[in-house]
């Protein structure tokens, strides 16, 4: 009796672990059995390395089950910073990348690590801060981020930075650069964590930070932070998709599932993929979080 119970428990454990992959919510294909064509498509798995922002916003949880429905391909997601995502591509540890640091991405493809790069969508960043906006940035420059940052630096007001070499961090540093400021000092807190943690810290310290809109909207209810500056072109953020090029990987080449990776790329830039992206977020936040702009 005991033996049987323990076998059962072990099996349960195995199922739990297997079921813990990000795809566990994938609905079963309802008519998979009736249509042999559908079945034949099953089995492919690709590893998508992407940024924490796409994962945290829930976009992938929304898109990937639909992609699997269409193609039978299972997408496993590893959410990391853009820096690490690109590194994973170079090391052959991912099949495809969905990231947002255009310069690095172009470089990545030029060096031969990626087959090609396609625009997918963009989202925008916003400056958030305490509800009472102690520096009055909302009045002074509601749509000029460069002016806003100058005031923050001038007043040495607490600003929380990702500080993790992620796409968002790079974006933030670029904006400081455009404003001709080198952010340094007691007031500039480098956190080295994901966007959600940065927002929590900003909230506790009642400072300002630059965040992507999606993460902010998804956490808004728990934060005493308001949108202070938005709509500046400097704050737009382009996402690109890059299938990893197996040819430069040497003996790791056959680990790359190039075919399915390409299929995912084509799907996400297709009319269907693009319209799904546009749909995402409207129900919950009343506005799309990502604007599709594939050509």
């Amino acid at each position: 009796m005991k033996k049987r119970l323990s076998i059962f428990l072990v099996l349960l454990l195995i199922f739990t672990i297997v079921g813990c992959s990000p795809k566990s919510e994938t609905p079963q294909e309802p008519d998979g059995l009736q249509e042999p064509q559908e079945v034949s498509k099953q089995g492919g798995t690709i590893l998508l390395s992407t940024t924490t922002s796409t994962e945290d916003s829930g976009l992938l949880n929304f898109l990937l089950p639909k992609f699997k429905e269409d193609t039978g391909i299972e997408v496993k997601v590893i959410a990391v910073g853009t820096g690490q995502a690109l590194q994973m591509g170079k090391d052959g540890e991912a099949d495809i990348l969905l990231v947002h640091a255009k310069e690095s991405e172009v470089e990545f493809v030029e060096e031969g690590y990626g087959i090609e790069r396609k625009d997918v969508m963009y989202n925008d960043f916003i400056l958030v801060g305490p509800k009472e906006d102690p520096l009055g940035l909302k009045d002074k420059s509601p749509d000029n981020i460069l002016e806003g940052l100058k005031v923050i630096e001038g007043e040495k007001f607490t600003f929380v930075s990702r500080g993790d070499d992620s796409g968002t961090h790079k974006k933030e540093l670029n904006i400081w650069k455009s404003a001709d400021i080198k952010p340094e000092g007691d007031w500039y807190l480098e956190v080295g964590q994901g966007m959600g943690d940065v927002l929590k810290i900003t909230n506790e310290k009642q400072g300002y930070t630059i965040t992507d809109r999606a993460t902010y909207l998804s956490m808004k209810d728990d934060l005493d932070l308001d949108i202070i500056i938005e709509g500046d072109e400097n704050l737009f953020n382009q996402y690109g998709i890059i299938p990893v090029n197996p040819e430069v990987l040497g003996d790791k080449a056959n680990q790359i599932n190039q075919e399915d990776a390409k299929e995912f790329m084509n799907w996400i830039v297709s009319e269907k993929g693009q319209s799904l992206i546009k749909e995402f977020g409207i129900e919950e936040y009343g506005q799309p979080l990502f604007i599709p702009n594939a050509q």
Partner: protein
Amino acid sequence: MSYITEGFKEAVKLLITWDGEVFQIVSLSILVSTSATLFASIISVPLGTYFAIKKFKGKNLFSRLTYTMMSIPSVVIGLLVAIGLSRKGPLGHLDLLYTKEAMIIAQGLLVTPLIFGLTYGLVKSRGNTIEKVAFTLGCNRLDTIILIIRELRVDILINIATAFSRAISEVGAVMIVGGNIKNYTRVMTTTISMMNSMGDYPMAIALGIVLLLISFIIHSIIYSYSREE
């Protein structure tokens, strides 16, 4: 593979030149974990001894609960402390979240049950003889506790070192309540975790080496001390 060897080379360079940032991170780690272990020991060693020699109803259940608490995951402690200290939490007015103090509190709470449980187990198995002698010489409860702690000091020190190792090597609690803020709350483990997600290995490897060295030094000191005794 080359980035691994490169990483090691860079790491050794960082250590040999005693890089300013490495130094700052290492000292903060030691400060936080030492304070946490110290506070926890002051409370847990006498209490663990007291409960070990005291006879009371439900002691078996108490023992089991104690040993369970010893392995409480650090992220759970981190979460509880963060909830308590956040602006909306009951202790929010103290403005402690994302500070050194919060990290000391979290690590202190993490190792308090550990030191308590280790002391409790030690005294239960080895304190009986000492307690008997204390009784026959006329000791009161407090005398007995002090006597047992003094007699078992080597083993208690080893336990405290074990707790310190746990504190300095945990990442969950300090990450949650400290926030890994550069120059303020960045310690060895949170840096390693961050550097890994940034794909920046040299600093992570350097700090990993320091962590191992600290552990080695502490246990060497205790080993030689216990042999002298």
